[in-house]
């Protein structure tokens, strides 16, 4: 039996790793993977809460999140491929036609 705080800490660590990946990586596909890591950290969190609360709602939510994450990857990769066709690069630093 793993106690809840450990799982929550693990999930917080995964989430932070994802945030770091989004901010530090320059390759669009790597950024996408880091976002997936964040979503999965939330899934761990939801399942942990669900198990400790004895409520099945959290697990159902996690299933929805998995489905949404899959759709998100589909759209994201399509946009990245279009970007690669347009400029032969998927480095997010070089995407600078529109100035911040």
């Amino acid at each position: 039996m793993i106690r809840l705080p450990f799982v929550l800490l693990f999930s917080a660590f995964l989430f932070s790793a994802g945030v770091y990946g989004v901010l530090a990586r320059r390759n669009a596909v790597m950024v996408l993977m880091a976002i997936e890591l964040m979503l999965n950290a939330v899934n761990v969190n939801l399942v942990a809460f669900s198990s400790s609360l004895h409520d099945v709602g959290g697990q159902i939510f996690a299933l929805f999140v998995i489905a949404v994450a899959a759709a998100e990857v589909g759209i994201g990769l399509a946009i990245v491929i279009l970007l690669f066709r347009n400029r032969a690069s998927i480095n997010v630093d070089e995407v600078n036609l529109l100035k911040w």
Partner: protein
Amino acid sequence: MIGQAVLPTPELVFEPLLPELVLVVFAMAGLLYEALAKRTEAVVHLSIGLVGVVLAGGTSLWLWDWDGPATVLGDAVSADRFAVLARLLLLVVAALGLLLGHQYFARSGDEQRGEFTPLLLFATSGMTLIVASADLILTFLALEILSLALYVLTGLTGRRAANEAAMKYFLLGAFSSAFFLYGVAMAYGATGTTKIAAMALALTGTGEAQALAVLGFALLAVGFAFKVSAAPFHMWTPDVYQGAPTPITAFMSAATKVAAFGALIRVLDVAFQALAWDWAPVVWGLAAASVVIGSILAIAQTNVKRMLAYSSIAHAGFILTGLTAAGSAGIRAAMFYLVAYAAMTVGAFGTVMVVSGRGEKRTRIGDYTGLARTNPIAAALMTLFLLSLAGIPPTAGFIAKVNVFSAAIDAGYWVLALIGVVTSVAAAFFYLRVIVLMYMQEPEPAAPSLTEKVGIGAENSATAILAIPAAATLLLGVFPGVIVGIIRDASVLRW
């Protein structure tokens, strides 16, 4: 014993979900038409979309007098009048978006993409779902439905700028959704439920779970602030509004704000109402940052779409100013502002579309020099919408600003109202600058007039569409009473 176990299932009452079902059915009809027809006509796509939107509007109107349970489908969907009013507003914006988009593709030289109408309907279904959602699982799903459709719509033309905008919108949007989701997970952990009514009950009185709930709210606020483009989560807005095709910018600038604010209102004033003392300072800070950053950075812009994007950040701040007043007073002010804002921003971006011409060549502020000579109708429309955005009477923007400021003052946040008033004055500068350029300077000799370029017919029908937001902007400014009663009825959240 197996076979005798009874699973409790929620009673299935689908009526409050009818508008979304209609929209999705028509979106799929559009997809099937595009996939199966040998030659597709843009007009047929437009008709499918408009019929879908009108039918969804009819079912929403019917729900105004809904006397069934307040929430249905296991307390996941709310059937109150707030949802009905927000839906109707969203559907009007969607219809204008469809019409403007049809005009845009007819004259921009880009081929009309068959995905346009279905994607817009899917996005609208997500938006109408989120304002009725009474369960954070459903809120998250609706948020993703509308976001994923909007990412694709942004990059629809495949031009480099649009592609870049889609990329930035997608990466930052997915990033913020993850924060939102983490917030939902925390709130679930704190209260043991994702239903906002049950959440409200769980948060009253208990002190233990509140720390986790406050953390959850903070993360939820990041997600919402991103979607409504409130500073400091506004970075994507100028790029996306500039890069996206203009009719899509018009649609999403208005509709996304209405949808996200609708969901935010439900989360603030129902789920987290017990924590009002904790969330009010957060909303205060977001509002102050948005009005200041939006108004100041807009002054430095040279592109009209970017300028309007920064202005939309400032307007998100004004709406948040109204929301600092908890409960029905704040909802009334915010709803009126949303109606006014939807009319004026769709109108402003629509006029930008008319002026920008083929391939969106003319979107610099300099291109508006002497517009009153070359295209007097567009100049007059732009003037009306800019005056309304600046909040000058007798336009809708003025009444809306008065409402949010008085709501904030009544709730005791007079410093915030003061910041709002001061920045409104500063913001008037960049709106009036465009009007001065249009009326008080001669057109550049090289600039060809618009009518030579696209033909007078396309020009007129695009302008005719803009008569609707123009009429709404004036009507709400002169007779705000026409809608006050409706908003009062809709400002009570049932749960």
